[in-house]
């Protein structure tokens, strides 16, 4: 079942060429020769655009095919279930293979957009008698949608500027920028795969609706907003950004009937649409994240009403009316919001939301959110890594928007501002920033290219303009600087400067393409379950412990054997090993995760009853000490401890896992709590026996370990993979003759039970 067909794209070079071509074409579409010969009539231009867009889409797809590995498995599993059982079954799906023994009301707790999209495509292709496996659709969905995203970026950019080269550039940028590729390579079957397309397209429709004041476009926008809600939790970004845009426009005094029609249509229909998703339900009227949209909806009614009143009554009366009316309504609204929040009718801001404002918040209050690497604040190099030259073109593009400052440009500015902030707070939100960066950068780049790739210098008009401006300048202030600027030594229309700028831009674009290809092939195309390393002779060595271990589970354990592991591996175990898990990547129940954390971080005597209560059969840990694989459970261990401490502060204490000097150690100096924790014992069980005496070494932490490996009583080693990355332990049954596990294990090891009872203390009498 496991999808391992690594679709090795025919080397870097071949995927390199279409990209280069695409960008070059994008740039060269304005090249003089082409323009002169082909760009004369409209139909040729359209044809060219279509061809270029098609090539961009092809490049976008091609650059995502470096290596293919399906992940996350849950979505794939859900899609298979959808295809096999139909939509209604999927809707009511109760999954009893995860979150044992709670189960998961999957149909009501997921965003079904992704699966339904794949399902629809599958059935459509079947209808067209194309025999296709649902797996292939799942694998290729993200690249296919990246092509559409490129097109959506083209449309959005075209709304911003009249220059059509900007749109094409934006499409090209969107297609290959690593910030987006990171979540949309082939096989990356996650919600973001389609959500980014929907995000960009919804924004395009919003701009369209706003520009035209059209109810139809507003309704279309609401429709795609509904689709977006069905697809990704990130829809809240749209829910907040659009009202914000409206608010800024109103504050700028740009209220118009166009705005009113577009917003009210979008809000009313969009909210209704979003409430149809079971997982969202009544959230749009109950949670604080959705309150801006509701508030602006009310506000825009007020503003519209005021406009009407202003046109009807005299200005003096209107002023009093406005002060009294507005003040009253605002205070009533605010009081109402506070009251409802205090009364619990509106949920307070969720923790994930707080962590957007205070990056330290999550670490203290909600470790489960902070423990995800995607939720960490972004490091500075990541911006350059993911966006390359776009990052410095981006402010220029935003500046261009300030120059024109139509309603739609305000949107780009607002989006840019908030997108950058959020991307700085959370690595994951780099994804929402990427579209606006592409659009803004394309505007800037096209401005440059449009200016410098003009073959003929528009001398007469320009000089006239300059003259006139000169005249006005003289009249105004008689500044000499302007005059000197009007007679430049090396001017814009100089062939040399044109060639230089065009050459530089071409170079930058080429470097950009090269960077994108390099990043994609090296950083974003390596699947997390198969590790690749280089041997000393340079040949590639594949470390395949994960799949090896999951296969072992699949073949050697009972169908319903419950596997306990940290939640990171939940989806993989569920998908690849097909065994029920206690917790998985859908971290909906913090307490359940904390329970697993507690079991992992407690002594065996404490952990065993927990495992027994949860009917755990096997425990799986990831241990990188032998190989130097740093993403192992010991390195994640403190998060387990913190999450457990959040629920049981009296029983699990983070401080106890540090040495008295405050160091996190695993060697002989490790604290007693650390040494006795189940996780430590499972990781290092029998590890020292692998080395000659005194040389046991942990290659991740780089420390020498004690010769005596920890002793496990209530678990027995069931399986250890080739490189010791995955270790699986079987939970022992209760002892048959009623001993505790320590006694039973010590008997097994051949120690004779000490006869020593009593002598000191009173006799313990048997009651019955």
């Amino acid at each position, binding site marked *: 079942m496991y999808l391992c067909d690594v679709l090795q794209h025919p080397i870097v070079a071949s995927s390199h060429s279409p990209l280069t071509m695409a960008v070059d074409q994008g740039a060269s579409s304005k090249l003089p020769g082409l323009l002169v010969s082909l760009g004369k009539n409209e139909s040729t231009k359209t044809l060219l655009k279509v061809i270029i867009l098609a090539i961009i889409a092809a490049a976008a797809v091609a650059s995502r095919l470096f290596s293919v590995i399906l992940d996350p498995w849950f979505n794939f599993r859900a899609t298979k279930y959808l295809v096999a059982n139909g939509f209604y079954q999927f809707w009511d799906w109760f999954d009893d293979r995860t979150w044992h023994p709670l189960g998961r009301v999957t149909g*009501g707790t997921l965003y079904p957009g992704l699966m339904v999209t794949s399902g629809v495509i599958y059935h459509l292709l079947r209808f067209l008698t194309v025999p296709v496996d649902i797996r292939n659709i799942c694998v290729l969905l993200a690249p296919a949608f990246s092509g559409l995203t490129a097109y959506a970026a083209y449309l959005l950019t075209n709304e911003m500027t009249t220059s059509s080269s900007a749109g094409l550039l934006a499409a090209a940028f969107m297609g290959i920028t690593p910030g987006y590729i990171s979540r949309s390579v082939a096989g990356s079957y996650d919600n973001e795969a389609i959500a980014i397309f929907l995000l960009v397209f919804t924004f395009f429709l919003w701009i369209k609706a706003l520009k035209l004041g059209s109810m139809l476009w507003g309704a279309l926008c609401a429709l795609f907003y509904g689709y977006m809600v069905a697809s990704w939790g990130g829809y809240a970004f749209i829910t907040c950004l659009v009202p914000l845009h409206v608010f800024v426009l109103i504050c700028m005094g740009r209220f118009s009937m166009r705005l009113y029609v577009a917003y009210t249509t979008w809000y009313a229909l969009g909210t209704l649409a979003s409430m149809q998703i079971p997982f969202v339900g009544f959230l749009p009227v109950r949670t604080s994240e959705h309150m801006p949209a509701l508030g602006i909806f009310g506000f825009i009614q007020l503003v519209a009403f005021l406009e009407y009143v202003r046109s009807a009554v005299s200005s003096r009366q209107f002023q009093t009316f406005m002060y009294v009316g507005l003040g009253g309504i605002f205070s009533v609204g605010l009081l109402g919001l506070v009251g409802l929040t205090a009364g619990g009718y509106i949920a307070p801001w969720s923790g994930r939301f707080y962590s957007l404002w205070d990056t330290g918040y999550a670490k203290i209050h909600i470790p489960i959110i902070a423990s995800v690497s995607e939720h960490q604040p972004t490091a500075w190099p990541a911006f350059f890594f993911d966006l390359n030259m776009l990052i410095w073109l981006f402010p220029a593009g935003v500046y261009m928007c300030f120059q024109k400052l139509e309603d739609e440009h305000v949107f780009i500015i607002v989006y840019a501002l908030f997108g950058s902030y959020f991307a700085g707070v959370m690595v994951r939100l780099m994804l929402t920033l990427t579209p606006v960066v592409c659009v803004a950068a394309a505007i800037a780049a096209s401005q440059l290219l449009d200016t410098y790739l003009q073959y003929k210098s528009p001398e007469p008009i320009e000089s006239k303009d300059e003259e006139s401006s000169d005249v006005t300048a003289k009249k105004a202030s008689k500044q000499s600087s302007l005059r000197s600027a009007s007679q430049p030594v090396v001017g814009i229309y100089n062939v040399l400067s044109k060639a230089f700028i065009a050459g530089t831009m071409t170079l930058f674009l080429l470097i950009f393409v090269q960077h994108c290809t390099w990043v994609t092939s090296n950083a974003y195309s390596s699947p997390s379950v198969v590790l690749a390393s280089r041997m000393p002779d340079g040949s590639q060595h594949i470390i395949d412990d994960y799949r090896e271990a999951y296969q072992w589970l699949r073949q050697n354990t009972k169908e319903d054997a419950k596997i306990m592991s940290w939640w990171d591996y939940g989806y993989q175990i569920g998908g690849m090993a097909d065994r029920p898990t206690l917790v998985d990547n859908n971290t909906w129940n913090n307490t359940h995760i904390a329970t697993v954390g507690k079991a992992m971080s407690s002594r065996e005597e404490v952990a065993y009853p927990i495992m027994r209560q949860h009917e755990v059969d096997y425990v799986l840990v990831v241990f990188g000490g032998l190989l130097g694989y740093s993403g192992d459970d010991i390195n994640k261990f403190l998060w387990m401890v913190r999450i457990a401490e959040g629920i049981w502060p009296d029983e699990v204490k983070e401080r106890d896992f540090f040495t008295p000097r405050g160091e996190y150690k695993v060697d002989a100096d490790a604290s007693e709590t650390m040494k006795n924790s189940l996780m430590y014992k499972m990781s290092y069980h029998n590890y020292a026996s692998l080395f000659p005496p005194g040389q046991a070494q942990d290659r991740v932490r780089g420390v020498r370990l004690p010769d005596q490996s920890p002793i496990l009583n209530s678990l027995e080693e069931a399986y250890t993979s080739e490189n010791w990355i995955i270790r699986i332990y079987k939970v022992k049954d209760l002892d048959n003759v*009623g001993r505790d596990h320590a006694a039973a294990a010590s008997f097994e090891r051949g120690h004779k039970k000490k006869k020593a*009872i009593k002598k000191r203390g009173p006799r313990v009498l048997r009651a019955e």
Partner: protein
Amino acid sequence: MRSLVSFLLLALVAAVNALSASGGNRLLVILEDVAEKAGYTKFLGDLEGRGFDISYETPKSESLSLFHLGERSYDHVLLFPTKAKGWFLSDTFVPYPTCLGPNLTPSIILQFINAEGNILLALSGSTPVPSSLVSALLEFDIHIPTDRQGLVVDHFNYDAASASEKHDVLLLPTPGPLRPDYKNFFGLSASGKSGVIAFPNGLGQTLGQGALLSPILRAPAASYSYNPKEESEALEDLFAAGSQLSLVSTLQARNSARVTVVGSADMLSDKWFDASVKKVGEKTSVKTLNREFARAVSGWTFGEIGVLRVNWIEHHLNEAGQSNASNPKIYRIKNDVTYSISLSEYSWDKYIPFTVPENDELQLEFSMLSPFHRLKLNPTISSEDSTTYSVSFKLPDQHGIFNFLVNYKRPFLSNVFEKNTVSVRHFAHNEWPRSFVISGAWPWIAGIAATVTGWLGFCALWLYSAPPAKGESKKKQ
């Protein structure tokens, strides 16, 4: 058709289980010397009469092996006291006490129990207990006096006829149930005879706190245990006294394997079967009930009584208009379900219906992490070899993976632990009542209807109203 086949198959499996539930009949008797069996002819004869296929071995025998190719060679082991000399020597040289030879080490004994073999262990007050047995018993939390030797005496309750000097033949009434709600297998009330149990020359044990241990026969209040080898006049360190001293104790392992320690091997000997004894201070002598007691103890140990069998378990939906198929994998919250379990009890040679003792209950738990329901199972159908217990109830308003759990573990009855896992799902989207059924929704429905009609009416009015004539409008302005 398929159900019939599966039923037949089930019945077949049940029948096979029935043969093995009574424990099989391969009995190994280990004696110091095979010739010693002459002293126990009645006891062994009784066993043979009940169908046991007895083999005799000595601990020193090379061929003695409880396992063959990883499988048990015998179903039951009966171990008489062995007086092996020279075991002190071997004890010093090998890590394990091998006084019973390399074929009966503590770990082999434990292995035998883990493989559901039963052991009846007869000890004696005059023979030191082999140290490998002491180690094994320690693992069970059954304690033997220090120096592996001890003798139970009672100066107020002895057989005046045979032990007027040593006071080491205790005369005991037949034991009552351990607790009022336990079944009493050793009361011997069925035999109809009255009498006492003679416990001559016995070794007392004390039991730990484990729930798997239970004494069959406890020493009377005034008895105590001492080491006859010690020369001192006064007893310095008392091992145990009174009812803390267990004379016949049992361990029923979690897999229902049974171990019984009989403190006095002599009580099983021919001499004390049907002997006449006279309690001190009483005039008349009475017959001993040792034969009946030995029958009960050996019968229980070797799985002839007190073995429960689960014939079948069935649960189904109990709602009108729904398919009530047996044992579905999934239910919905708030479903009405019925759970039934059929139980039989093996009694010497046949299965009889199992009846729960008075004051006790057979309970069903419906649990996820912790029980959501704990209900009494009531007997409903009774056939000649089984009783069906069942209960109907409404599932809790909580979805998840639940277990129907019957966890009936009582001393002297083999363990019943039956877990049937089912998923309990939430309401599907079309299982809720429709809005028009809920009276509270009527105002809203009326509101929607009013809005729709109002909107349509307005549109109609708007479309079909002729625009006012220009002249009029000018006049108005």
